[in-house]
């Protein structure tokens, strides 16, 4: 048992699986000697060599496409995209190839790759370094989209993602890379990939979130608890495929739901959750499903990013609204 930050947990999971499985290859920009710009891969090249942990030329389309080819040959490439803002050149490879190689070839070729990328705002980064566009990936059939929100889950989920026989987009909320430390047992145990996690049980309202926003969501839940409001907090974790039952069950109990995410609102993944409730949980809803999200504007440069991100106050206000509704 070691105290780890989220980024250290990522590093430990990578190290564990590099050690356990010769087919695992880690590749990306500046992940070798430099250990990654966030140090997620620090020490790995030294330990496992340049064949296993390799710096690539600066070309994201290439990296994703190379990973598809490696995966088709039975390797398990783990790609690091340096920031989510540079992931868009990979979409053609992910959508047109990685996510459908198994389907197209009727199982003859498969694509067990992991595409890791830090995402989200809040660290005063330069332009293009703070966006959250997980909804784009959640729309792509054949993918898994996984977002950890704590060190222990990052560890177990990343192991699961690497071992999964299909492609996984693994998005790491960089704002909480070093926010908390947690005891993590580095025993190679993976967590299930098809389930939401209930972080806090509660009877009055269901708060659904993922990634960095869970931090504010949990703070809001704590503050609400002080005022006697008992919020259930769900960490979606795997956006695709979505374990909608856990959310439906919770809302069947609470009757109220607020979804929190830092991506822009329109066609964000919060919409899918609200839509599922409108389709499968309507009779249980005592109040509108509120979305507390990033705005439908370009993520601003850092001076204003604090205004862009969902705040604890906004979450509390939304909860008050749905509690007072009707």
């Amino acid at each position, binding site marked *: 048992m070691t105290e780890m930050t989220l980024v250290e947990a990522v590093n430990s999971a990578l190290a564990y699986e590099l050690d356990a499985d010769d087919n695992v*290859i880690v590749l990306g920009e500046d992940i070798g000697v430099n250990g990654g710009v966030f140090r997620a891969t620090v020490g790995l090249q030294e330990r496992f060599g340049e*064949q296993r942990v390799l710096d*690539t*030329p600066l*070309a994201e*389309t*290439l990296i*994703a*496409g*190379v*990973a*598809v*080819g*490696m*995966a*088709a*040959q*039975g*390797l398990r*490439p783990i790609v690091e995209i340096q920031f989510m803002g540079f992931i868009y050149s990979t979409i*053609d*490879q992910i959508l*047109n*190839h990685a996510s459908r190689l*198994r*389907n*197209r*070839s*009727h*199982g*003859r*070729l*498969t694509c067990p790759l992991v595409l890791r990328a830090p995402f989200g705002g809040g660290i005063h980064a330069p332009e293009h370094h703070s966006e959250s566009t997980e909804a784009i990936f959640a729309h792509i*059939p*054949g993918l*898994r989209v996984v977002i950890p929100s704590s060190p222990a889950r990052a560890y177990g989920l990343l192991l699961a993602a690497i071992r999964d*026989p*299909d492609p996984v987009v693994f998005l790491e909320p960089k704002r909480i890379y070093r926010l908390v430390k947690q005891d993590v047992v580095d025993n190679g145990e993976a967590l299930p990939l*098809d389930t939401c996690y209930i972080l806090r049980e509660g009877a009055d309202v269901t708060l659904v979130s993922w990634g960095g926003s869970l931090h504010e969501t949990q703070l809001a839940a704590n503050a609400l608890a002080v005022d006697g409001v008992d919020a259930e907090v769900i960490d979606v974790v795997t956006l*695709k*495929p*979505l*374990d*909608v039952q856990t959310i439906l069950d919770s809302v069947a109990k609470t009757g109220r739901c607020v979804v929190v995410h830092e991506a822009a609102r329109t066609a964000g993944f919060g919409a899918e959750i609200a839509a599922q409730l409108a389709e499968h949980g309507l009779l249980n809803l005592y109040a509108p499903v509120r979305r507390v999200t990033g705005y439908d504007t370009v993520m601003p440069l850092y001076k204003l990013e604090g205004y862009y991100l969902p705040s604890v106050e906004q979450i509390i206000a939304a909860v008050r609204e749905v509690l007072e509704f009707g």
Partner: protein
Amino acid sequence: MAGDQLNAEGVSRRVASFDIRYTQYLDMEGRPVQPLPALADDPEQIVSLYRAMVLHRTFDAKAIALQRTGSLGTYAPCLGQEAVFAAVGAVMREEDVLVPYYRECGAQLLRGVTMTELLLYWGGDERGMNFEGPRGDFPCCVPIASQIPHAAGVAMAMKYRGEPRVTVTVFGDGAMSKGEFYETANAAAVWNLPLVFVANNNQWAISVPRNEQTRCETLAQKAVAAGFAGEQVDGNDLIAVMTRLSAAIDKARDGGGPTLIEAVTYRLSDHTTADDASRYRSEAEVEENRQYDPVIRIRRYLVNNAYWNDDKEQRLEQECREAVEQAVQAYLDTPPRAPESMFDHLYEKLPVAYAGQRDELVHKGEKS
């Protein structure tokens, strides 16, 4: 100082130079323009490749006919480029991996993909991509140039495992305008991959002629940007393509890294059955290019050397027709897929989230 040159701005020093070469062995009459390479000493192989080219051409014509009568979807014919694909099919080893675009039926057939499988694919059925033959080969790739990085990944796996295998990827002249080609070429040199790039320069990318696609003197020189060797071959000359391609594959297998081979051909057909090339190019241009026909050229070579004759030709035509008819029948007799099977290979195991949708399809299938 050798290589220095005086110009208006003073002295500047030459720091690198490059040559691009072109190889041809047979002229249009099938006569050697230079001493033939060793592989010409094996007439049996050349005869057998000639047979494969004729079969390919027979298949091609039939596929077009099937499309015209509604039994096949859009099809991309290969007329005029058979020598390139025969050479690829002939020179690669079974354990090598082909990462094709969509015009290489000829190579796929030689590697063991069946005509029925090819028809299934072009007939809109995924089962055609689950071919029995070369299990590691990639299926056709429609998004131009997007297969090229896959080839680098496959070659990385070969190199990582220390296997003496080679990856060959094929693409058109149009594909060489896409970033993926350059990104991969660059990386293939950095990683010294066992990877051969074969450009089928058939002069057209749908309606865009080669000179509107790029202004470089040769497509082969695009390898200069990646720091490895590129060369041109006469793509209508089977012996030239085989020779240069084997050299590249041997070099790759021996750890010598990547090569780019530009095979200069001509697309004698429409781009696909959905295209009408007469809209954008003259019949005269096509006619002029018919004289370079790769099938005729190698036949002339064989006939000139008494390895082939009319009698054999007639029998071959008959055999090809029959083989193609049989494959077509097997294709037409293939029972349809169950609609819900569209979920069966989405993931290794279908997540619960989508089980309901699959069930819905079972129902939809029953109704229709």
